[in-house]
């Protein structure tokens, strides 16, 4: 295990395409449901305990060595939104590019060859983490953090929200990120059938609407 490798992978500057995605925050801002720091905290908390937990389980599973093909099929089944499925595969491809440069590894090469159009992002993330020498729990922490870090950055841009307030939201959520990561990692050690499958239907619905907007700042 390398704690420093985890920092590299979890860094928002890791060039894997996440900066162009708001995690549903742009749709929530436009709908008037997210207007301030308190709204950001509620939005991030909801994301963390639903799609965040689910994605963390998948990534932790890949890091634990579960079959990535099976995990990818699970990700497809868990995600009813075609727009979000497409975004997840696209981000998986982008992450694969960065991960192979950072941690050249036969497992990453095999996954890239098996999914030329991209595996789901959490599956790639878990495989990358494994290549970097990280275990399921560290991997799940990485997913939990990016689940809330992406929307927080997006809302700073969308609302002009005070960046100190946005960062304070992330800091307040840290204990819950730890809980989610622990749950995901525990489930991943028990196998594919034990993985969490929490969902956020409103994120699915607004993602479909957002994908049809003619004018938007973020890709999802």
């Amino acid at each position: 295990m390398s704690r420093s490798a985890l920092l590299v992978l979890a860094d928002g500057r890791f060039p894997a395409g996440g900066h162009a995605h708001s995690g549903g925050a742009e749709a929530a801002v436009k709908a008037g449901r997210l207007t301030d720091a308190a709204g950001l905290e509620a939005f991030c908390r909801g994301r963390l305990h639903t799609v965040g937990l689910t994605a963390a389980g998948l990534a932790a599973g890949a890091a634990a060595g579960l079959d990535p093909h099976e995990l990818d099929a699970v990700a497809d089944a868990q995600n009813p939104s075609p727009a979000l499925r497409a975004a997840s595969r696209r981000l998986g491809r982008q992450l694969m590019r960065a991960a192979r440069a950072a941690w050249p590894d036969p497992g990453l090469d095999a996954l890239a060859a098996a999914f030329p159009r991209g595996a789901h992002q959490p599956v790639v993330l878990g495989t990358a983490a494994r290549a970097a020498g990280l275990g399921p729990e560290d991997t799940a922490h990485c997913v939990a953090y990016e689940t809330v870090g992406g929307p927080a950055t997006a809302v700073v841009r969308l609302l002009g929200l005070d960046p100190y307030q946005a960062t304070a939201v992330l800091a307040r959520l840290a204990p819950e990120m730890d809980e989610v990561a622990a749950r995901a990692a525990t489930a991943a050690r028990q196998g594919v059938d034990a993985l969490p499958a929490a969902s956020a239907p409103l994120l699915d619905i607004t993602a479909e609407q957002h994908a049809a907007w003619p004018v938007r700042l973020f890709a999802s």
Partner: protein
Amino acid sequence: MHLDHDHSHHGAVSADAHRPDGTRRALRIGLGGPVGSGKTATVAALCRQLRDTLSLAVVTNDIYTREDAEFLLREAVLPPERIRAVETGACPHTAIRDDISANLEAVEELEDAVGPLDLILVESGGDNLTATFSRGLVDAQVFVIDVAGGDDIPRKGGPGVTTADLLVVNKTDLAPHVGSDLDRMARDAAAQRGDLPVAFTSLRSAAGVGPVADWVRARLAEWTAVPAPAPAG
């Protein structure tokens, strides 16, 4: 960053000069510059000048819409399958410099879908004077400014003006109307750029983009003069 270790057969990681099958990839030229300086108009004019003799495609990086891509489609400068729009999450310079993954996806998808290609033009979203392209994304870059943006821009310098492989000063036809001194701009640009070239253009006429098209052809001649790299693995 140069990555010359073997990436096996599943796609190049970054700016490798060959495609996964070992053939030479297209030359990639980036076009950046401030909002409204004429980047999209320059791309459109280049497409019209070059499309009969070269196989080319365009990637646009719009800031918040698909307008640049749609302008090129509406003007029918290329068939729609040769134009891709990349979404940049409110940060156009990030997508061309700090995290180039979406743009690399776009250029590789274009080569897979409509290739083989000689040339891919990557147009940045309008940004500020510090926005430059990563060398992991493009082989050469053009920085487009215009006379109406102020004739002191070349003097002020900045990474785009100073280091771009070609500086284009566009809308020269407007110079008398906005009180811009073209000689001064040329002198200041030369002082900032040393031997790097500067092209003065007006796209009011079809031939106006000629100096830029000539420069692109010269870069392409250099690109293809280098022997094709050995096939991977």
